[in-house]
């Protein structure tokens, strides 16, 4: 069975470490916040200028002056800080954020990522995605392994305009956990019940399959 969105978020959450500053993109990455282990302190960075994003407010505490990068009303946690957009991207570009999780349309064997623009469709913009992928050392891309039409999103060369070049090393799809090494995807884990053959069939870029590919474990 392919992973649900919640399971994908749970798997990403296994990569968190105590004391991590983390930037979560829109969509599945946002769900990761729900699976931070109880015994762990993680601080969420929102690129509009907030470090220490808390949960959604109540009707009583809602405040138009306090939003996240997805423009949703939020709260702050104790120990949070707020700053300008330049400061926010200084910490992103300067490599101070420990983990960035974001979605994509395509990733290729050279660590290129395409996530913001489909030619001939309305282009809304890249927001902070190009800065995030260029600045972060540790990035996890979350996306479905193949499109609804069955087209692989793990390619030898991205076909869409790039968001960043050579910056992706880890990809979680609904089928597999993969890492990019020396111009190939390396299959590290597979979703429970998903066969190696299915992953091979749905991966267009070069794929290295070790002798043993463990199933992902969920608590």
């Amino acid at each position, binding site marked *: 069975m392919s992973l649900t969105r919640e399971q994908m978020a749970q798997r990403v959450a296994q990569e968190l470490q105590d004391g991590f500053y983390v930037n979560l993109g829109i969509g599945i990455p946002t769900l990761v916040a729900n699976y931070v282990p109880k015994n762990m302190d993680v601080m969420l960075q929102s690129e509009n200028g907030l470090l220490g994003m808390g949960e959604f407010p109540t009707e009583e505490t809602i*405040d138009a*002056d306090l939003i996240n990068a997805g423009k949703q009303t939020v709260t702050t946690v104790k120990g949070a800080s707020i700053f300008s*957009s330049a400061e926010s991207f200084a910490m992103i570009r300067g490599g101070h954020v420990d983990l960035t999780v974001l979605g994509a349309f395509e990733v290729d064997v050279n660590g290129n990522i395409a996530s913001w623009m489909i030619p001939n469709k309305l*282009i809304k913009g890249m927001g902070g995605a*190009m*800065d995030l992928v260029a600045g972060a050392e540790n990035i996890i891309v979350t996306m479905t392994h193949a499109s609804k039409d069955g087209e692989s999103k793990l390619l030898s060369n991205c076909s869409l305009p790039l968001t960043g070049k050579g910056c992706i090393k880890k990809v979680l799809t609904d089928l597999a956990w993969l890492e990019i090494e020396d111009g190939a995807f390396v299959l590290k884990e597979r979703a429970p019940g998903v066969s190696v053959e299915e992953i091979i069939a749905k991966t267009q870029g070069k794929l290295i399959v070790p002798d043993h590919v463990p199933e992902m474990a969920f608590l």
Partner: protein
Amino acid sequence: MAGFDKVVASYEEAMIGLEDDMTLLAGGFGLCGIPENLIAEIKRKGTKGLTVVSNNCGVDGFGLGILLEDKQVRKMVSSYVGENALFEKQLLNGELEVELTPQGTLAEKMRAGGAGIPAFYTATGVGTPVAEGKETKEFNGREYLLEEAIVGDFAIVKGWKADRYGNVIYRHTAQNFNPLAATAGKITVVEVEEIVEIGELDPAHIHTPGIYVDRVVLGTFEKRIEKRTVKAAE
């Protein structure tokens, strides 16, 4: 003694000198911390041909979106647009030009503009459409893009409190691009919720020192919420 007093009495006075075809910097992220009354004054004034540098372009009927109604904007420099149908229509018609700029690069362009730095190198956008036509250079084995700073003829800023000397503090994430825009306008206008006497703000807590600010005007704000999200009642 009035040499540092930046307070003006009206929005009309606040926007004196804004002319057609100028470059306008605006603070705000989405609808959060936008100078909503200064934008409304520009709409009233009818200034046309503007190049507007702002992370977003408001929504239909609010924020910078209202400047599209009478086609006052010639070009937007933004990281994310298209939350408004009118924007999309004018873009497809060719009535509006857009220069998409990565959010961090946009912030740094304003910061650099205000700090007297004409250009800077960044890894953001290398190998992407953003890099087209731009000079690159390698530092320590990595490729970087040369990005030019932005200076505006006018900057419009939304603060929380200001003193009469134009020292400004922002509230929560309504800060965003505001302090950057404030530094990079040849004329910087700040609208605030409260004007206090000098000495009332802690000097160590000032976000935008008054040296960057030319005019301060007192306003009342709708503060529209773009995505109202609340947690389920417990």
